């Protein structure tokens, strides 16, 4: 009962603070540009925290550290890619150009950037529709994870948790637009930083420091791991602090995770929006160090402590919980003081809320602006544009709520592969439109649809996790192929299609005109 009272007090404080930020956002939101890209007035720190908090969800914090407890520290390669590709390459090679092209083409979303660059509202509407459909599923999975965690910890009904979280996020997002979303991200990011820092320092301190902690993890034999029922006994055959044998099943699993998420980050519409919010190029450049440190303190810590949880379970006579998602919550609830249990839960809640608000915003703008405003109702005023997007966002939130309250297997499937799907669909046309002036509308269509259809085909018929759930078993028995993330084939295919169709069907005069306009500031 005491726990529920604490939860209620914290939740009310949380909701009040975010609603206040939503109100401030509402006061500042006058134009469509304000609502969609925070008036293009954001500074380095807010961009970095918002990018990081959008990127790192609750799934990344507790889900991936749970995965690290099974496969060991080799998953740290993903932390490396998260910073090297997710921050350095993303900002330097994509961020600056995206911002400049967005300004030249007056684009406020990724689909609008594609549509304006290739002079095609249909391209914008179809991209918006793909993003919105898969984002609803992804967002409901984020709520599903966090509501389950709170249900287990506080014993509050799952349905009540889902409704409370969705309503809180929905209010400040609809009222305050992207201003409110980005300001709340800064607050949520700080909470996530504090939570992960204390958790990591606490775990390393319990195990005697970095070297002794890793040595203790390396010393866990399969027999010891078996005694606590840890899946690491079979899934980390070379030990928790060593890479698994090349081309073994655990190796393929890690390879898939590392590249699927590590490269997929470059084409996430909700992250690309952050580039468009920068007040100038300097803000984007200065966001790089803040972003790098933020991701270091999030994924590097989460992936480092995962395997160490096995040592703590062995030392404290705890059994491995049923699923990897419960590993870190178990360690926190059993070995940390009560005040930190609350802090950690709210840090994870902050991670879930920040990702969900960014996804709601992107999905809402995809349906409101990209599908309806540009595809159906053309040439409407700024005020109407915001109103339509607000209504679309309410519809998206309602759809997410319905799906979260009635979770289907297909939701988990769609959300787990969101990163890969977005990368295979958008990365090739997005990259080539930024760097290759001859990219044509036909090339963009071919790369986008080719990448999308191939990814769906791979997940439905081949991929070892999804194909058995959908068609009973994978069409290819060899695990070296069916464990491969579609990004390995889908991404090169999408690039090839974009290039080949751009060469075969060249730009017409209208496309050439918009191409020249889009490169004006570059």
């Amino acid at each position, binding site marked *: 009962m005491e726990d529920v009272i604490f939860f209620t007090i914290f939740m009310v404080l949380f909701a009040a603070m975010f609603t206040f930020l939503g109100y401030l956002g509402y006061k500042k939101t006058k134009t469509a540009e304000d609502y969609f890209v925070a008036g293009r007035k954001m500074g380095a720190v807010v961009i970095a925290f918002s990018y990081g908090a959008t990127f790192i969800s609750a799934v990344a914090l507790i889900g991936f550290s749970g995965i690290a407890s099974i496969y060991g*520290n080799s998953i740290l390669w993903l932390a*490396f890619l998260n910073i090297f590709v997710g921050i*350095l390459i993303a900002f330097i090679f994509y961020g600056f150009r995206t911002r400049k092209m967005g300004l030249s083409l007056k684009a406020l979303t990724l689909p609008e950037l594609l549509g304006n660059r290739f002079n095609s509202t249909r391209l914008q509407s179809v991209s918006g529709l793909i993003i919105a459909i898969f984002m609803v599923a992804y967002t409901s999975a984020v709520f599903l994870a966090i509501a389950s965690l709170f249900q287990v910890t506080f014993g509050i009904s799952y349905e009540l948790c889902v409704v409370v979280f969705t309503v809180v996020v929905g209010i400040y997002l609809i009222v305050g637009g992207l201003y409110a979303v980005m300001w709340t991200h800064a607050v949520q990011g700080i909470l996530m930083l504090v939570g992960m820092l204390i958790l990591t320092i606490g775990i390393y301190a319990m195990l005697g420091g970095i070297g002794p902690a890793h040595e203790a993890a390396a010393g866990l034999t399969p027999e010891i791991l078996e005694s606590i029922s840890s899946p690491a006994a079979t899934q980390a055959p070379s030990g928790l602090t060593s890479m698994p044998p090349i081309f073994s099943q655990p190796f393929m699993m890690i390879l898939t995770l590392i590249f699927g998420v590590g490269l997929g980050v470059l084409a996430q519409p909700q992250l690309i929006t952050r580039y468009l919010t920068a007040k100038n190029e300097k803000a984007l450049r200065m966001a*790089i160090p803040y972003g790098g440190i933020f991701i270091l303190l999030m994924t590097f810590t989460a992936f480092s402590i995962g395997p160490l949880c096995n040592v703590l379970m062995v030392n404290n006579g705890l059994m491995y919980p049923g699923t990897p998602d419960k590993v870190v919550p178990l360690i926190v609830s059993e070995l940390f003081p009560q005040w930190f249990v609350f802090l950690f839960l709210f840090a994870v809640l902050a991670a879930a809320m920040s990702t969900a608000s960014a996804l709601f915003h992107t999905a809402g703008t995809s349906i409101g602006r990209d599908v309806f405003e540009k595809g159906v109702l053309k040439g409407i005023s700024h005020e109407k544009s915001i109103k339509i997007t607000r209504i679309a966002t309410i519809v998206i939130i309602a759809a997410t709520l319905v799906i979260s309250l009635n979770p289907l297997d297909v939701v988990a499937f769609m959300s787990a592969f969101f990163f890969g799907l977005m990368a295979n669909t958008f990365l090739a046309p997005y990259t080539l439109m930024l760097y290759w002036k001859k990219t044509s509308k036909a090339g963009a269509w071919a790369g986008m649809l080719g990448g999308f259809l191939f990814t769906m085909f791979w997940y439905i018929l081949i991929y070892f996790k999804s194909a058995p759930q959908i068609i009973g078993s994978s069409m290819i028995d060899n695990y070296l192929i069916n464990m491969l993330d579609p990004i390995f084939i889908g991404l090169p295919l999408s690039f090839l299609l974009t290039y080949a169709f751009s060469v075969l069907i060249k730009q017409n005069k209208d496309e050439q005109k918009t191409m020249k306009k889009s490169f004006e500031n570059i």
Partner: protein
Amino acid sequence: MILGMDIWVFTAWVGTILAAVLCLFYGIYQWYTKKSNEKNLSERKNDKSRKKGVN
């Protein structure tokens, strides 16, 4: 084994920290470049105004 990790895991461990340090150096470099550019600009402005004053 280095710090209890095999060479590949250790490379990833160090690589992650180095990538973050690289981000930090990028920021420091940008900050100094901006500072020196601003300094050069203000010096040029001062030179111009001094020349105008002499003429």
